[in-house]
């Protein structure tokens, strides 16, 4: 079993305009930088992107926004992005805002073959409008549906040719659920290792969820809010 492809170009083969993509990451942490660059080059457009955030103006999904390749964003939080704001206010960009936990659960459900589930988040708010409500344990819940995507694109720390992945720190975030929910899942990793090097007991994403894998390069890993404390002298 060998799911390796040469690079981002080969990995993104078959991604076409008007497709739905899931992209892992929280803010700029754990985003698939190589594939995003490739999508810009590839110049596909009309994309529906499911991603917790939409990058910043000059980085991450912001790069696709600048080239107007995205038709619709499905996210929980989309601040820190002027071009996003401009396109949204002008009506060029559709935006579907989803509570973060529901977004995570909907991706998980998509990957796990659970077409719908009840969750309390959003009851009594705009998010609940038009959704089925049911009471459990004395509390109202909304029926939420599973999300899937034509391609899921995730970024991991290490992976092997079977597609087994491990993530580092909070760069994990949405990547594991999105890996499950892609009809085709592409994993870019900082380091490709030999099968058996990853301890079977400690793999975050089993390879069965991944169809293509490659070792990315030139990771910038931009920090959005560099916060530090002073050393006591």
């Amino acid at each position, binding site marked *: 079993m060998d799911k390796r492809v040469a690079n981002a170009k080969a990995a993104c083969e078959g991604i076409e305009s008007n497709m739905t993509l899931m992209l892992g990451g*929280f*803010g*700029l*942490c*754990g985003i698939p930088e190589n594939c995003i660059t490739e999508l810009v080059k590839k110049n596909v457009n009309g994309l529906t992107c499911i991603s*917790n955030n939409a990058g910043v103006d000059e980085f991450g999904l912001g790069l696709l926004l600048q080239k107007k390749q995205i038709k619709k964003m499905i*996210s*929980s*939080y*989309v*601040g820190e992005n002027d071009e996003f*704001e401009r396109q*949204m*206010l002008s009506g060029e960009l559709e*935006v579907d*805002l989803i*509570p*973060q*936990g*529901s*977004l*995570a*659960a909907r*991706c*998980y459900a998509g990957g796990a073959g659970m077409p719908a589930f009840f*969750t*309390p*988040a*959003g*009851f*009594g*708010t*705009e*998010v609940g409008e038009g959704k089925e409500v049911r009471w459990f344990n004395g509390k109202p819940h909304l029926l939420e549906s599973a999300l899937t995507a034509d391609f899921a694109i995730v970024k991991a*720390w290490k992976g092997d040719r079977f597609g087994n992945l491990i*993530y*580092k*720190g*909070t*760069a*994990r*975030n*949405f*990547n*594991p*659920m999105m890996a499950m929910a892609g009809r085709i899942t592409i994993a870019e990793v900082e380091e490709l290792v030999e099968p058996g090097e990853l301890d079977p007991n400690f793999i*975050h994403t089993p390879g069965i969820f991944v169809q293509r894998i490659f070792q990315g390069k030139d990771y910038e*890993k*931009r*920090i*959005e*809010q*560099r*916060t*530090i*404390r*002073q*050393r006591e002298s």
Partner: protein
Amino acid sequence: MLSKDQIAQRIAQELQNNWYVNLGIGIPTLIANHVPTDVNVVFQSENGILGMGPFPFEGEEDADLINAGKQTITAMPGAVIFDSATSFAMIRGQHINLTVLGAMEVSDQGDIANWKIPGRMVKGMGGAMDLVASAENIIVAMMHSNKRGQSKLLRQCSLPLTGVKCVKKVVTNLAVLDITDKGFKLLERAPGVTVEEIEKATAGRLIVEGDIPEMEL
């Protein structure tokens, strides 16, 4: 009248030993600086860490270790990293003992509005809707009035809601208030603030019973 930092300081007094606590962006974040030394709490950040530590020293920032505010952080010994689904399983499953978050408006029934102002750019609710819909113990940390001097403690929220009947307590620059069936119940006054000032600044139903003590910081 309390500073934002003092609001955080007052809320820190609510912390109990061995609690798991989720702190929202803004005033709530400051609470971490005021945890009593004899109280041991673990901070959760909903992007996927339990046991969040202080900001890193300069040069030790790790792009792969951030909090839900996208700030670089550190991890305490015994910390755990997990994915977003697991993180919200903790939240939705009511494993978090206390959630503190900011608000634009709170109603006297415990409704909260903190994510959207019609006509302005909407950034999104992030994890706030999951947190307020699930948490059993929610404290709102905010200024008593907005920048135009209007009360943020209302009979009904005017802004789009984040959650309904969920807030249990509000700590503002003027007062500590519980939310009861009959409205905001005044528990404590900020130093130097009178009950009359609080009454004037509160648009929602306010219950004042007996002597209202001044808070101790």
